[in-house]
């Protein structure tokens, strides 16, 4: 009987090894371990054995069963794995095909730059002030030390609607209005972004509509060196830590002293190249100490208060920063243009 069991074991294990799929394996399982299988049959004949032999053979039969079952399970796992692999390999897709497109949008380059500039100055304690685009002559000119007949009004030919109303030529009227609201008490610390308009024929470098962002800080003891410090901090954050600034005297009716700020040329590091017209410097903005007449007209006492103001053109900055060749691109809304700056 022992021999028979050993024989059966060997026979079963051979069949397990030979099984090539789960169905065959199942047949092996049923035929050897099933109730009508040969091992059961052997056990049924155990009654003929002696009392000593019976447990020995019983133990042996169990061992054989277990050995076969183990082998069957192992083989089952292996075959299942193969079957899964086969199934998964059949499910393969072309991962190189394009994905489902998600519509992506983005900001206009000017908005992006203006927000960037706003955030830089907000970080320095400024607030954002806004005002009307159709402005009174008084706020656009007179309150800024540009009385009627002033020759500097030539500098910015304007779109008048009536004698007293015009499209603002700069965002400075917001400064005048904000100061007025403060009723002679500082500090006033604002930046004013917005659209402005001038009587220009549109071409590559001129636009009858453009944007401006101006800043104003009025308080007791505001110094020109503060202006230099603030603009330096701005320029380094906006254009890079390695850029230098310089102030050059200039003229604006609403500031005295007035300056223009240049930053060192990125292309040539100050050596002189075609971008900076061989000067090593690129003009970025105008600035100055608020003219006492402007302070007075807005209700501030120039003996107590001083202030600085500055103004720049986001279009110009964008054109310099990205090498944009035509100012009209900002207003034609060609999506090929708009989409280029979504991630910039």
């Amino acid at each position, binding site marked *: 009987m022992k021999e028979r069991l050993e024989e059966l074991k060997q026979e079963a294990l051979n069949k397990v090894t030979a099984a090539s799929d789960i169905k065959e394996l199942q047949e092996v399982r049923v035929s050897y371990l099933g109730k009508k299988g040969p091992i059961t049959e052997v056990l049924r004949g155990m009654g003929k054995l002696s009392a000593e032999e019976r447990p020995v053979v019983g133990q042996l039969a169990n061992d054989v069963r277990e050995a076969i079952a183990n082998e069957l399970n192992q083989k089952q796992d292996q075959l299942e794995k193969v079957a899964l692999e086969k199934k998964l390999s059949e499910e393969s897709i072309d991962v190189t095909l394009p994905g*489902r*497109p*998600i*519509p992506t*949008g*983005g*900001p*206009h380059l*000017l*908005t992006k730059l203006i927000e960037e500039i706003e955030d830089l100055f*907000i*970080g*320095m*304690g400024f*607030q954002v002030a806004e005002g*009307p*685009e*159709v*402005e*009174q002559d008084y706020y656009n000119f007179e309150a800024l030390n540009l009385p009627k*007949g002033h*020759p500097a009004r030539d500098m910015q030919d304007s*779109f008048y*609607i*009536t004698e007293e*109303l015009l499209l603002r030529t700069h965002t400075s009227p917001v400064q005048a209005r904000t100061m007025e609201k403060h009723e002679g008490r500082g500090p006033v*610390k604002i930046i004013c972004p917005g*659209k402005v*308009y001038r009587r220009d024929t549109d071409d590559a470098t001129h636009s009858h*509509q453009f944007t401006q962002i101006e800043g104003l*800080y009025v308080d*007791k*003891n*505001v*110094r*020109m*060196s503060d202006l*230099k*410090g*603030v603009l*330096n*901090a701005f320029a380094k954050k906006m254009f890079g830590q390695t850029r230098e600034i310089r*102030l*050059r*005297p*200039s*003229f604006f009716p609403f500031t*005295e*002293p007035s300056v223009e700020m240049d930053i060192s040329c990125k292309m040539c590091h100050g050596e002189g190249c075609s971008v900076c017209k061989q000067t090593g410097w690129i003009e970025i903005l105008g600035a100055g*100490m608020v003219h*006492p007449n402007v302070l007075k007209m807005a209700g501030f006492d120039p003996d107590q208060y*001083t202030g600085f103001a500055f103004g720049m053109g986001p279009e110009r900055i964008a054109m310099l920063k990205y090498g944009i060749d035509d100012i009209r691109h*900002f*207003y*034609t*809304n*060609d*999506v*090929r243009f708009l989409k280029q700056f*979504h991630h910039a």
Partner: protein
Amino acid sequence: MLVSLNWLKQYVNVDKVSPEELAEKVTKSGIEVESIESIADQISNVVVGHVLSCEQHPDADKLNVCQVDVGDEQLQIICGAKNVAAGQKVAVAKPGARLPGGLKIKKAKLRGEVSNGMICSLEELGIDPKFVPKEFEDGIYVFQEDVEIGANAIELLNLDDAILEFELTPNRSDCLSMLGVAYEVAAILGEDIRLPEVTVDGTDQQVEDYIKVKVEDATLNPYYGAFLIKNVKVGPSPLWIRNRLIAGGIRPINNVVDITNYVLLEYGQPLHAFDYDLFGSKEVVVRTANEGETIKTLDDEVRTLEPDHLVITNGKEAVAIAGVMGGADSEVHDGTTTVLLEAAYFHPQSVRKASKDHGLRSEASTRFEKGVDPKRVKEAGLRACQLLEQYANGEVLEGVAEFNDLDVQEHVISFDTDKINNVLGTSISTPEIATILEKLRFPYKQNDHSFEVTAPTRRGDITIVEDMVEEVARIYGYDNLPFTLPAGSSSAGGLTVKQKLKRKIHNYLQGAGLNEAITYSLTTEEYASLLVDPSIQERNPVPVKLAMPMSEAHSHLRLSLLPEMLSSIQYNVARRQENVALYELGSIYINENEVVTKQPEEKLRLSGAVTGLWVNNQWQKEVKAVDFYVVKGLVEGLFQVLRINNVSYEPAQIKDMHPGRTAIITVGNQKVGFTGQIHPSLQGQHDVTDTYVFDLDLDAIVSLANLEESYELIPRYPSVTQDLAFVVDESIASQHMMNAIKKAGQPFLKDVQVFDIYQGEHMEPGKKSIAFTLRFQDPEGTLKDKQIEEAREKIVTAVKETFRAELRG
């Protein structure tokens, strides 16, 4: 202002710096030097030659063989110029010479004859053709004066000069004169200044016997001086005057005119020379023009004058428009012998008006418009007399006939060292400030740390302390200012709620796939009132028109952002960008009056437009054109982001919008905008396919936005969903049904969604089936079947009654 360095050297020593260094210093001190023009390094070895003989070339009709004495040697030169002749003194480029344009002169043979150099024309020497005198236009240049043979012609013709172009800001008109430039450069370089010595020999004859001056309007003409110069010989002016005029950009004409122009450049004071014999009387009368009065000006144009134009007359008729242009009848000509010279101060605004009205902007009018130095008017006249005496054989009569009502204002400005340092943030010492005032040549008194400066009249821009702060700062140098940060009270920067919301809206729409656009606020008259929101249209707005538009395309302020946005869509589609999704946040300008009397109301609008494909997944066959529900979805998402509830959409007829695909958007009872499809015929006009838009009142939306940060408990008890389908007339709006369901389903109905719309087979014509998913929930506990059943019953009853609906099985 074109500044000749060779000329400037007469007044200031500039030899210690190169032209480039000087330009840099001047720029950093306040006057931008736009350019430096110099041909000095392109030209060499050109000398004065004496043409000893000139014979025709044996083998060439048009060539001459010249023997030329160039001082140290005699050269044979072949010359093709028609005007070459023996006896002339000419400019000779010797072998080895270089000429502008890269030309190198070598020994050569021309048709068998040796040519050792070239006799030059002015153009070949690099002089702009517009400055070449007529007689030398087609030939070589011939020196008119007694120049030394072999002398350096480059120097004689001022070709070694460097011309700096000063870009003057309106306040620095003092530098519209070489003397003003000299003061500026002397201050910057810390050099001395040498002013011209003005002396006139004169005669015993008195001006008063020849001419009198009468001024009728002392405000417009506070000073008028008339000089008289007899026995003048009109001819070419000396070479150095011509050179300097050319350097300054003025074409030489004859000695009398050239001298007035020379003084204009030197002093910044325009002068005018009349032919005394043609003047027509012995009295200069300055008055405003009569209505309809005419004058024939130097350019032979007959001009009609306005009553606010100031004119110079001979007592009867106008002989000049004051400060703008002289008359043709009294012009100096070749035969003029007696010159009446005018040196006057005309009111800037009067000259500005007349020059503008006549379209005549000249070197003279520009200077009058900016205001000339009142203290130098007469001196400038005398300077011209001196030059006329020296270079036009003139005899200057004693005295000047004048009208003088000039109130020369000298501003006295007091400040102390602290004032300067407090404004600049510097620590400049008192002696340093004194040194700067010396350099500027501003007269001052000093008492300890206090200064009292008398601003010179040549610097009309210096009137207040702040001007002095600037003067000190620019000579001290802005580079020397420290970098500081404001020491004052610190303030928290930040955005207002509205500004933050605007940014949130930008972010949402960009995330939803829209590109921000910026269009023009100025548009055509037609566009200005196209696609206007009905609640604005109700107010009968009149588009604001510019008084003087540049073009019809930008003549009116818009009442809607959509028309220009539609143009932008058209622009893209025309360039094969067919799928476009744009939005803009911008102002419209509402004026309700026929005539604009006050600032229009500026309202911020948020508008968007989408055309082409919205879903574009080609290879998976999922391609879907934009439709109404795409754009409505965008709007709904926006309201969700801003937590605005209670939004409804009612079908509406809006001009230029699709009549069946447009809805007015209402929040509560407030109309906040509209959405829908552009009217197909308007689409057609713009060559675009179906385009859907939204247009919202941004101010309204911002005020409705719920900004409260709150937290709602996550429900602990399960919700139950039920589906209901009704058959109703196809005209019934689903939103109305949903509203009714929501109302009837209180308090456990949490949400209702449409999940199916069906029309067609098995459905009565004119009817539709509409199916809803209802979600019930009780935050307090698990809902019982009975509670749900009751709620469902109420809903079904309400819908049946309100919409004559039938429950579908």
